């Protein structure tokens, strides 16, 4: 086995695999109401996804996260989860996914059956009106039921919350308190400049350095040695007994320890969430010799994975750092 090691000696062991660019919410910071989704024929088939994931596992990937869009809106997603779930304990240490929670009440039990043990759920607010404003759908009750379902079947839940100035800003401490009371960790994320949206992200850009000050005035935060191999830095909260994570792509750099790559729903391998460079794995998959072409594409990717991302939101009306939408790449 030839492990995936890039030109900066970073070992790639974590694949984030987007299974669809579609979503049943329309969060304002993520996509426009009338989002143009890619035609189905351009999206990888179930068999292509399975084959690709096994190709990554063969090259030393130990953890796969299914993303979207919203992975649970894809009709055959459970077949993929079951197929990859069979690799857990063999080639894979962990199979997980990130979901908006809308369909989680239905999927929680089958996910456990397939070998999933932990999931991330995106939740920006527990205020129904604000949820509707942010997601352009009245989905909060459904999402909360989904989170309750995950807990009921023993899935470990981590909540991901995008911190938004003037929107959920004031609710963040209460949200953390609730999450920890339910036994869920929570990670705060700064708005990322990906894809053209309506409105101006700068208006709601909330630096987490300030949020951290607010939380430290209220609670005792102790830096945690916990690492997920990603950009989050963790803190244990003495008063709630839970853990919070902070992801600060704009005010901090986290690239040195990067262990991951992403594959978009159309099979484009993105070496960095904050970089344009892609390698076409779909072309490799649909060629006459997919195994060899995938291996060659992965080797090329390792030579071109950039050292750092190129994120910035420095002013009003600024174009996004990247034209590609987050829903195409999958967080």
């Amino acid at each position, binding site marked *: 086995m030839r492990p995936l090691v890039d030109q900066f000696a970073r070992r790639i062991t974590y694949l984030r695999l987007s299974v669809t660019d579609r979503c049943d919410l329309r969060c304002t910071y993520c996509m426009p109401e009338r989002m143009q989704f890619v035609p189905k024929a351009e999206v990888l088939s179930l068999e292509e996804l399975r084959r690709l994931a096994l190709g990554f596992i063969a090259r030393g990937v130990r953890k796969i996260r299914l993303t979207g869009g919203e992975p649970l809106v894809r009709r055959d997603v459970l077949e993929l989860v079951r197929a990859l779930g069979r690799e857990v304990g063999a080639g894979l240490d962990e199979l997980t996914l990130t979901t908006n929670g809308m369909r989680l009440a239905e999927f929680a*039990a089958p996910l456990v059956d397939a070998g999933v043990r932990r999931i991330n759920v995106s939740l920006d607010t527990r205020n129904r009106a604000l949820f509707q404003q942010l997601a352009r759908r009245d989905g909060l009750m459904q999402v909360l*039921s989904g989170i309750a379902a995950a807990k009921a*079947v023993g899935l470990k839940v981590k909540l991901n919350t995008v911190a938004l100035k003037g929107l959920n800003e004031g609710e963040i401490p209460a949200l953390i308190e609730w999450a920890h009371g339910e036994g869920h960790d929570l990670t705060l994320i700064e708005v990322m400049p990906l894809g053209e949206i309506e409105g101006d992200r700068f208006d709601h850009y909330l630096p987490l350095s300030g949020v951290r000050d607010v939380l430290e005035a209220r609670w005792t935060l102790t830096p945690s040695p916990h690492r997920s191999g990603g950009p989050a830095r963790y803190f244990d909260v003495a008063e709630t007994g839970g853990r919070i994570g902070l992801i600060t792509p704009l005010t901090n750099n986290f690239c040195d320890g990067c262990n991951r790559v992403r594959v978009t729903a159309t099979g484009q391998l993105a070496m960095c969430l904050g970089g344009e460079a892609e390698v076409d794995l779909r072309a490799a998959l649909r060629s006459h010799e997919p195994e060899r072409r995938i291996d060659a594409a992965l080797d090329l990717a390792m030579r071109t994975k950039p050292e750092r991302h190129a994120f910035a939101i420095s002013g009003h009306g600024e174009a996004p750092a990247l034209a590609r939408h987050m829903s195409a790449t999958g967080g």
Partner: protein
Amino acid sequence: MRVRLMFLGRLQELAGATERAVDAAPGATVEALLELLERDLAAQLRSPKVRIAVGGVLGGLDRTLSDGDEVAFLPPVSGG
């Protein structure tokens, strides 16, 4: 003994509530618990497609309950 029933997803509309507390005989099974509910609701919850979890673990209708248990009913995956 008292146990708490949790209805998740679209089962909430069926039950007309997100949760309900019921008194049952000590050592009752989930099946015995369903006998205490309205007939229509019990029939739907008995469907093999509805999943049952007690205390964070998936189980079946024959699962024996203890005082204070939370019994969750989860809806099946709906088509596309």
